């Protein structure tokens, strides 16, 4: 944003805030409307405009804008929540549009698009979770375990691969937890291999009975 434009917006918002404090809501609204028209990316403009908006619908729309631009602004969130609450009290219909980590976008019964803050820790959905670093090692370990159930010979082959993978990935492990996980895969692979040896021997002697 150019410096003179920035100055102009600051002045407009300052004026709007002053009028709002004086209870001259109409003037405050006009100034904030101008500010949001000139600089739609300025959250303060939307917030002041919402406070002085002539209708509940416009207030909600402005608060949604303000919230989208500054999701951490506590007052915006509080006002938005109260506004949605009041809207729902009148018309309980809300249709899903989309959601982000921080908010839902819904369409009200009066066709308003509203952003509703989630206010909760974001947890990556299970199906969208990226596989961990240890996944290839785990995969081989799973093969080894299944093979152990099926006579052990496969486990004798797969368990060392799992152990090797675990060792190989150790160097690129970004966290202590990941390193520990790989170490555990390594230990489990060794254990599976040790169990697989006698079991596969029991299988093999059936091909060549003494």
């Amino acid at each position: 944003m150019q410096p003179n434009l920035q100055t102009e917006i600051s002045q407009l918002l300052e004026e709007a805030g002053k009028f709002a404090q004086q209870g001259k809501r109409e003037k405050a609204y006009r100034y904030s409307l101008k500010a949001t028209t000139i600089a739609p990316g300025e959250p303060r403009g939307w917030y002041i405009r919402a406070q002085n908006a002539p209708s509940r619908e416009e207030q909600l729309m402005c608060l949604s804008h303000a919230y989208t631009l500054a999701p951490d602004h506590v007052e915006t969130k509080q006002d938005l929540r109260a506004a949605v609450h009041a809207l729902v009290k009148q018309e309980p219909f809300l249709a899903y549009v989309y959601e982000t980590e921080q908010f839902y976008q819904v369409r009200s019964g009066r066709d308003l698009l509203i952003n509703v803050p989630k206010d909760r820790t974001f947890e990556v959905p299970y199906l969208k979770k990226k596989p961990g670093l240890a996944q290839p090692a785990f995969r081989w370990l799973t093969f080894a375990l299944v093979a152990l159930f099926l006579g052990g010979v496969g486990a004798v082959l797969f368990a060392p691969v799992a152990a090797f993978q675990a060792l190989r990935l150790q160097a690129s492990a970004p966290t202590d937890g990941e390193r520990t996980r790989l170490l555990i895969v390594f230990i489990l692979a060794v254990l599976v291999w040790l169990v697989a040896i006698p079991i596969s021997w029991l299988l093999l002697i059936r091909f060549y009975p003494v």
Partner: protein
Amino acid sequence: MLVRAIYLCALWSAISLLTTLVMGSRLRRSDSALSFLWLTGVILAGNFIAIFAFGRLLEIFGLSLLAFIFGLYWIIRLRDWNAPAQITWSMTLMTTGLFMVYTFLLTAFSPLNPLSFVFALIFFFLEAITLTLALAHMHESLDVVCRVRWHRLLEKLEPIPGYLPMVSLQVPAYNEPVEVVEKTLKSLAGLNYPNFEVLVVDNNTPLQATWRPLEEICRTLGPNFHCLHLDQWPGYKSGALNFAVTQTDPRAEILGIIDADYEVDPNFLNELVPAFANPQVAFVQTPQDYNDSTGDVFSESMYRGYKYFFEVSMPSRNERNAIIFAGTMGLIRKSVLEEIGGWDEWCITEDAEASLRILKKGYQSLYINRSYGSGMMPINFEGLKKQRFRWCFGGIQILKKHWEALMPWAHLVDPENKLTFAQRYYYLVGGLGWFSDVFNLLFAFFLVMGAVFNIFSSPIKIRPLTDTVLIIPAVFLCLHILRFLWVLRNRLRVSMNMAVATMYNFFSLGWVVTLACIQGLVQREGVFLRTPKGTSASKAWHAIQVTQWETAIGILCIMAGLIAFGSDRNWRTLSLCILLIWQGSLYLAAPLYSLLSLNRETALGGTVPVQVTDQGKPVLEQLAARWVVAFSMVLIGAFSLIRFLPTPAGLPDYVRFLPEDSSSAVALSPQQSAGREPGATASPVLTTAPETPEMPAPTLGATGATATVTASSANCRARPRGGAERITFLYKDQQVEIVGRSDDPGNPWWLIKIPDSNGRCWLWGMTATLNGSIEGIPITSERGTAGDSQ
């Protein structure tokens, strides 16, 4: 020795369990001296019988000493249990452990071809997992019935003056009849707690006529009742509840979930909210109750089935702060729900899943075993099937998502995982417990295969069917059934008939649980079961149709058992038949209950709405069953393949490591020993070998080969099979001359010359080692004779 040890332990286990069934629930004290005396008494009682049965004083003494030390360890560990429970647990654990060792040795050292060995190994692992799960069930039963000291048991919480945090009660609804929700809302309006709001969250109900009246009802009930209709909302119930949290009053500290068909006690909040005065308590759960539980066997047994979880599993879990948040009739701290990221929209049992994430953060949970409300049960067996499918599917989803957090090393990988050992144990066993029904179906399959091979006299072998393999599982089965009935009677206060009806209600759902387990493993997203649609106007026919798979499996089991026994009448096929009838009855309980549920449908008429719990994509039961059918086909194919693989030409050396089962059977009771040699019955589970056809006997002379008896004593019989008439005994290290052999080198029988006699008899190859070459020994089917003493 191992076999004798198993029998002795099984004896101790049976004595202690039977005394527990009689006295376990009455003895309300626990002290070390009493436990010590109880342990001594059980061991001595077992030993008294064992001395007459086995002799072997030194062995009995040694094993008693071990059992005593083991028992003392558990007496110290389980101080909150009474003496019968402590001893029952330790003896059952010991028997199970020894039996697993035995079955492993039998699997490892039986002369089987490679494919048979692989099957035997799979069977061993299945058996081991099933026995471990049975132990877990026993632990839970003893824990709730025989516990004398409860550390976290609370019947009711007293209100704390001045502590009245705001509660937001959420009532999720989907296509619910207005009158049902209205009843629920009116009961909520009667709550005697001053600071709460109610938020009706209707999600995706298509018709305005269904949900609009809810808005009006909320208006009439007052300003703290709100209604919210969410349209085209993703994430099903949990998606809607997640959004609902954003619409709760900002002052609300506690959230409550109330199903739309629940009538709530006015004291619900007043008596539960004080639990949250402790900032560590994140959620509180109370039992879910039902108001339409009487009138017919189906309703009553279904009701008891639900109660089992809240009367047995939850109190046991609560002692270790490992309860499950069951959704309705529970309260949860809002800040904690926000901290964990809300309800999981992938898992179809989002409430149980959330409780695990909460406990992972180190919070406390609390279970108050007092009913504060009642709802409606499924109207018929079809509804029950669908509901159980959903619960099991959700349980498997939780295991898939959180398995690593439940592993012993979890806290090393993730230091923020604060689950205790007990919490990990309960959640892991709770998830794996669903697979019991999968294993049960597999065992039924193995039994049916055994019967089929027996009917067609097929020599397919998987594992030798020794006496121990037959007797000990039968003992386990009987004891666990008795234990289950005992816990039902004690905790649910029901008659024996109702306990049996409840037990069968559980078992009747085995098939649908199996399907849910498989679907849970193979599906990425949530699905719900769609049962076959009725093609007839007859309600009875439809009731059978929705259980067509269970009916087919049940009939198959019973027919296979009866035909197997009819075609070859001996005590082994009788055992097989009894086992198959038992298995069949478990599956046939489904059509029976489905028919019985018609009474419920008729009695309730239109008063109960059809509950919609469908979440996710539909999966047809027929399509879900294809996995089971395909797996069965693979197994049948593999069994058939075994026939074409060569068996060892002679008896391999490694059979010397086999436990001496036949000898112990002889020692146990000569009267019982007839027909017990395992060699004649090596099959998938149970088959007896065909009668050896009569053939012209070749001239049998000296072969140069001898056999040395390795078992402590061995029967020598008239024919080369276990059930044949016994002619004489042979003793350990006795060397006898071999004059002929049976035609099955994988399961050899030697026709031997009876020492000091001109008679001949058949000695089972696994009780002796061959000295010399098998080549020169002629194959024969000659009948043994006692001969005259020389």
